[in-house]
């Protein structure tokens, strides 16, 4: 549990060790620096940080050092990627923990969580979490997680064990990201500068290719799709509905399958085989042979994916029409 960064015990532990960044210049602390590098490296290359538990001191202190490095580099996409990768490590660990341990961790976040046993259909619900805590760290726009689709009684949302683990994982992701951006400016010690350079080099090499060369048919993306595209480029984890909306939109405005897959390479849990299958399915090349349209504006609103439209949005009912209309307008203007 000390290996879960937000748990107060882990923080006490660091304080207890009286460790500061200056110490990194000493040979004795080299393993910490190396582990910090590996943490970020794994986040960049594999999208998950594996745990190494040989030396708990190294494990805990290197996490803080990694945060400092990322704060210094100050790249939003890299920080997001790291937060997701670390959170995923925690998530994996949490799923293995016992119910009582999970409960203890949730309580250490001051969440109001209770152990229950309640069966709905043939699913066993083992925890009840107060709706305010449930809503403090919900996974991204996934209809399944919407409060309206949840058993809610007397202020408590009933959830299953893996769901509690997932909520904590989501909390950790926010926590780590906020931690990185809240670190103020500082002068890194000599030893850290070397690592920062290494990571910068690595990140440059592994940054997903930008979408240059992807054909644009001359239309303008509606505000909702612009945001999704932006989030995707930032390597953020899109929900199922967000992926569906963006992918069907891109397919219908003429993006090539390979180009879409290239875009999704930025997502931390990217798996080329699965992504290809899904994109081809939506493009009507598989299964039902039906090419899907993007969700209507109304559906987008329901799922909270509509950021509020602009002038052109008033004329349309589907994000696709926005693109078509704007491209027609542009052609008219160019003539």
């Amino acid at each position, binding site marked *: 549990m000390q290996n879960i960064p937000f748990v107060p015990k882990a923080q006490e532990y660091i304080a207890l060790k009286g460790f500061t960044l200056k110490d990194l210049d000493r040979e004795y602390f080299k393993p910490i620096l190396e582990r910090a590098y590996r943490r970020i490296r794994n986040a960049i290359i594999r999208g998950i940080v594996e745990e190494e538990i040989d030396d708990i001191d190294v494990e805990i202190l290197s996490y803080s050092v990694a945060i400092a490095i990322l704060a210094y580099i100050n790249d939003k996409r890299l920080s997001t990627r790291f937060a997701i990768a670390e959170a995923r490590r925690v998530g994996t660990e949490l799923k293995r923990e016992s119910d009582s341990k999970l409960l203890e961790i949730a309580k250490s976040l001051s969440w*109001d969580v209770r152990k229950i046993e309640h069966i*709905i*259909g*043939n699913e066993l619900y083992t925890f009840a979490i*107060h*709706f*305010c805590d449930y*809503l*403090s760290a*919900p996974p991204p726009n996934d*209809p*399944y997680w*919407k*409060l*309206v*689709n*949840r*058993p*809610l*009684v*007397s*202020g*408590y949302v*009933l959830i299953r064990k893996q769901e509690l683990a997932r909520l904590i994982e989501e909390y950790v992701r926010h926590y780590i990201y906020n931690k990185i951006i809240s670190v103020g400016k500082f002068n890194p010690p000599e030893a850290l500068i070397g690592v920062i350079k290494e990571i910068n080099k690595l990140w440059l090499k592994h940054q997903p290719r930008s979408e240059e060369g992807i054909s644009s048919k001359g239309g303008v993306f509606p505000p909702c799709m612009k945001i999704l595209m932006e989030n995707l480029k930032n390597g953020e984890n899109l929900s199922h509905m967000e992926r569906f909306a963006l992918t069907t939109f891109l397919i219908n405005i003429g993006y090539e399958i390979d180009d879409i897959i290239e875009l999704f390479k930025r997502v931390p849990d990217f798996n080329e085989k699965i992504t290809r299958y899904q994109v081809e399915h939506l493009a009507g090349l598989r299964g039902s042979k039906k090419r899907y349209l993007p969700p209507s504006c109304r559906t987008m609103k*329901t*799922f*909270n994916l509509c950021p509020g439209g602009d002038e052109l949005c*008033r004329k349309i009912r589907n994000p696709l029409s926005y693109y078509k209309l704007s491209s027609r307008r542009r052609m008219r203007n160019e003539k």
Partner: protein
Amino acid sequence: MRSEIVKSIFREYYEKYFNPKEEDIGNIKLREFALVPFDSPDIMIRHLSFHTFKEIKQYVMKNTPLHLYYSTAYYKTPEARNMDEKGWLGADLVFDIDVDHIPTECKKEHDTWRCLDCGTHGKGMPPEKCPRCGSARIDREVWVCNKCLRVAIDETMRLIEEFICDDLGISRSDVKVYFSGHRGFHIHIEDERTRKLDQDARREIVDYIKGIGIRVELLNPLPKMNEYGWRGTIAQGIYEILMTLRDDYRPSDLTQREIEYLINKRSMLVRALEEGSIDVRIPKSLLTKLVKEVISKKSVDIDERVTTDTKRLIRFPESLHGKTGLKVTEVNLSVLTDFDPFSDASWLNSSIKLKVTGNIPKIKLGNVELNTTPGDIIVLPASVALYIVMRGKGEVIEVL
């Protein structure tokens, strides 16, 4: 129209009768206050900060407000002029039931709308866009009759009983209900836990109460009636539809075939809803229609902007609403069903002699049936008369 007489009525109220209770607003030191002065209805004075109710009282005695507000939010420095400096600390959870948003039958009798671009006009709820020229610039004149108010009361009761207390688990004693002074009710919850909720979280609560985003796929196999949350509500709603279904009765937009399907399978479906099942399903297109019907009956139409805005200014309890002259009044839940604004939200016992200056629909306000034409000179209970004056449809001749 806002004559000196009316101003003196407002001033007298704030001098003699305005007496907000300490328990109406918690943590007043952390709140922002704002008012629209009686004499300059086009400006709003914001970023006011007070430490005691006495200070507030003294301030409004000197500066008669047409409208008076306070922030649902708590701030470190409420008097700061911009949001960053204010330092947001949290906000009460607030709901607004405004009969304006709810289509009632009687609106056809007393509400009118007019397109500001082409002049087309009509009665009842205004269309989103003008049917003739497509303009969205539509002006409306809204009246709230006793029937409208009944609807608002029913919605408020349902919101509190079923959603706020049963589902969100908030205790009745933490729920305060205020007549807004105009068209509905504000429900305030000053709860430690809900205070920190951000906009997204509040939107989730709004969606829950309005039944937005319910996934039909997750309702097959059918839920059981005693399940928690919307699943149980949907099961109960479908059960009610099944029980009232006859060959000649069609709820919502069901086709003949769908009705037959439901009638044929009724006993099996009813059993599934009562006892639960792991394999009883309804075809998705039919289930979608049923769910839509249930949502329209069981959801509550709250104004989502009020609930999701964590920096909102809301009417001050016991203040006067400048468009109606009625008082923002706390209403005890036990007497909510009998609430009558013209007696319960007024402090005036006198009568007023009034000259009617505009068109007023035939409408019942409190105990008074109005049937007037411009130019009439009539004597009315002061609360109703003031209401007409504040709506710009009359002039006070004298207070009797």
